[in-house]
């Protein structure tokens, strides 16, 4: 930044052209450090993931071998030997390493098409996405319930919001214990009603729903706080006017309040979609993809599990899954940017 901090005298304005060029250069200098970080860790990796998805790669680099001068071997022959080159006379390690990936074109994507676990994960992603939207009406209901001025209401609001502050890891643990067969609180409560114990997380049909319920807990809290803030800003005169016209209850909510809450609803939709598609922590903690093979897996989980699999890394295949997930997410990102762009032009 030193270049920008020219010692322009505070009292005497610098001549026009120089001031002008400073204004032209300054934004770029202010952007530079963040842009470098962002390019190295976000922009370039996105491109690399697309590229890697057309390879088979185990995540490793191998030492490179070349022919020793004066031997019968050629550089190519040494390279072709792979690891055996270290035991072959006439070849020596160059000290460099090379990328071991093998180009396969679109084969990873073709394999995805016939991979049942990929489809299970995609199906679960859809279930997550649909059910996660319950957080929005749920949050609105709690917000309406809490939007009163009684003693201690601030503390109530904070305590209702507080699950959102917990890490998903803790939420996952808390709910796995809540669901424990026989002794977990859920099954104790079911026992009071004479219902036998259910092993939620061990049941093929229930496990995903059990995890989503856990995820809805903090997500609903988040939507609640958005709506509480929104309700604060609702125009009281409009409400009074509508009340004089005889509007009340659900009608008032639908026709007068909700339109004014649209900014809050929009943000709630954005964070809910992102939250649903990012679901990884809860699944890893609560079921690790099980029961069975990937029954509760989603794309985010399946990608991680494939790429860093215990049975050998499959970075190329994992990247292909990531690309699919990225493209799904891009639909929402594009929608969000489009709305922002529209707002910018108005504003």
């Amino acid at each position, binding site marked *: 930044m030193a270049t920008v901090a020219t010692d322009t005298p505070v009292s005497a304005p610098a001549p026009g052209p120089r001031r002008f060029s400073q204004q032209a250069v300054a934004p770029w200098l202010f952007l530079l450090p*963040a842009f470098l970080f962002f390019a190295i860790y*976000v922009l370039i990796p996105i491109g690399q993931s697309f590229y890697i998805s057309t390879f088979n790669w185990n995540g490793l680099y191998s030492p490179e071998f070349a022919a020793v001068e004066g031997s019968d071997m050629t550089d190519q022959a040494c390279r072709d030997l792979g690891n055996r080159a270290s035991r072959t006379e006439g070849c020596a390690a160059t000290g460099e390493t090379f990328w071991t990936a093998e180009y396969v074109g679109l084969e990873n994507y073709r394999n995805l098409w016939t991979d049942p676990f990929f489809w299970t994960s995609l199906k679960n992603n859809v279930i997550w996405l649909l059910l996660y939207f319950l957080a929005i009406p749920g949050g609105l209901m709690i917000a*309406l319930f809490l939007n009163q001025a009684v003693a201690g209401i601030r503390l109530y609001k904070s305590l209702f919001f507080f699950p959102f502050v917990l890490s998903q890891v803790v939420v996952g643990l808390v709910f796995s214990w809540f669901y424990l067969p026989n002794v977990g609180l859920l099954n104790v409560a079911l026992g009071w009603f004479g219902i036998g114990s259910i092993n939620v997380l061990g049941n093929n049909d229930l496990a995903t729903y059990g995890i989503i319920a856990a995820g809805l807990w903090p997500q609903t809290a988040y939507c609640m706080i958005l709506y509480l803030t929104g309700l604060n800003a609702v125009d009281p005169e409009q409400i009074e006017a509508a009340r004089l016209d005889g509007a009340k209850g659900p009608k008032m909510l639908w026709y007068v309040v909700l339109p004014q809450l649209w900014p809050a609803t929009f943000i709630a939709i954005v964070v809910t979609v992102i939250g649903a598609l990012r679901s990884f922590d809860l699944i890893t903690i609560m079921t690790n993809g099980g029961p069975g093979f990937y029954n509760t897996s989603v794309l985010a989980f399946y990608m991680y599990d494939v790429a860093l699999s215990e049975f050998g890394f499959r970075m190329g295949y994992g990247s292909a899954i990531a690309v699919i997930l990225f493209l799904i997410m891009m639909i929402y990102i594009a929608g969000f940017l489009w709305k922002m762009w529209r707002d910018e032009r108005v504003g």
Partner: protein
Amino acid sequence: MFPRPIQAYSRPVQLTYQAILPAALILWLIPLLAVMWFSIKPGEDFTQGNYWGWPENGLAGFANYWLVFTGSDMPRYLWNSVVITVPTMFGAVALSCMTGFALGVYRFKGNLLIFFMFVAGNFVPFQILMVPVRDLTDQMGLYDTRLGLILFHIAFQTGFCTLFMRNFIRALPRELIEAARVEGVSEYRIFWYVVLPLMRPAIAALCVLIFTFIWNDFFWAVVLTQSPESQPVTAGITAFNSQFRAMYHLMSAGSIVAAIPPVAMFFLMQKHFIAGLTLGAVK
């Protein structure tokens, strides 16, 4: 005000509302209350199957928490979390003060494009970055180090922070900056002496948010670290739980310990936290 203030209703309705409030709260927090209950029970209760009842020999009190701190790697994980979270918080906020200033104050070609790039980057799924970032971190010799995590977190969080800062700076009165320019103040000084002091509320809000986000991060912690020397508490807790398998009193105490710093941060800085989260929820 909507719904209609409870004071406008009859006395019985008011009393019912006052009674439902705590009941609803307890129901809402019950999974967490259960864990808190577990964490103060003595271990023998769980081996004898007394999961929920009052312990025969009295509560364990803080004994379980003491054991968490003295009998496991938990203090180390907590320290790693601090070492990862705090520099990330400063780094991301510092970088985004500059980007927010550049994008919020200057009009130049590509302004909106760069802004949208930061915003979009903030929303991408982590998985599209995972393989290259893990590889890059490894190549730099930073795999399984706290620095490796910090650098990535700073870069990624800059997206969200830029969105936040830029919109905040946009809402500041432009006359201030124009007036300073007329006075001949250099752009750097305008940033430092005019804009930065006005950004204090935004900086506070972002610090609290980033602290919570990074403390609670799990995905990158398992992708970029693997040993107790560098793992933060979210990742370390799985190792902790396998050390104390089925010892629910210790696992519960461990999870509560892991959750305390962001929770404390939230309750101490509530106003800033909520202001940050709900930015944009009101027009």
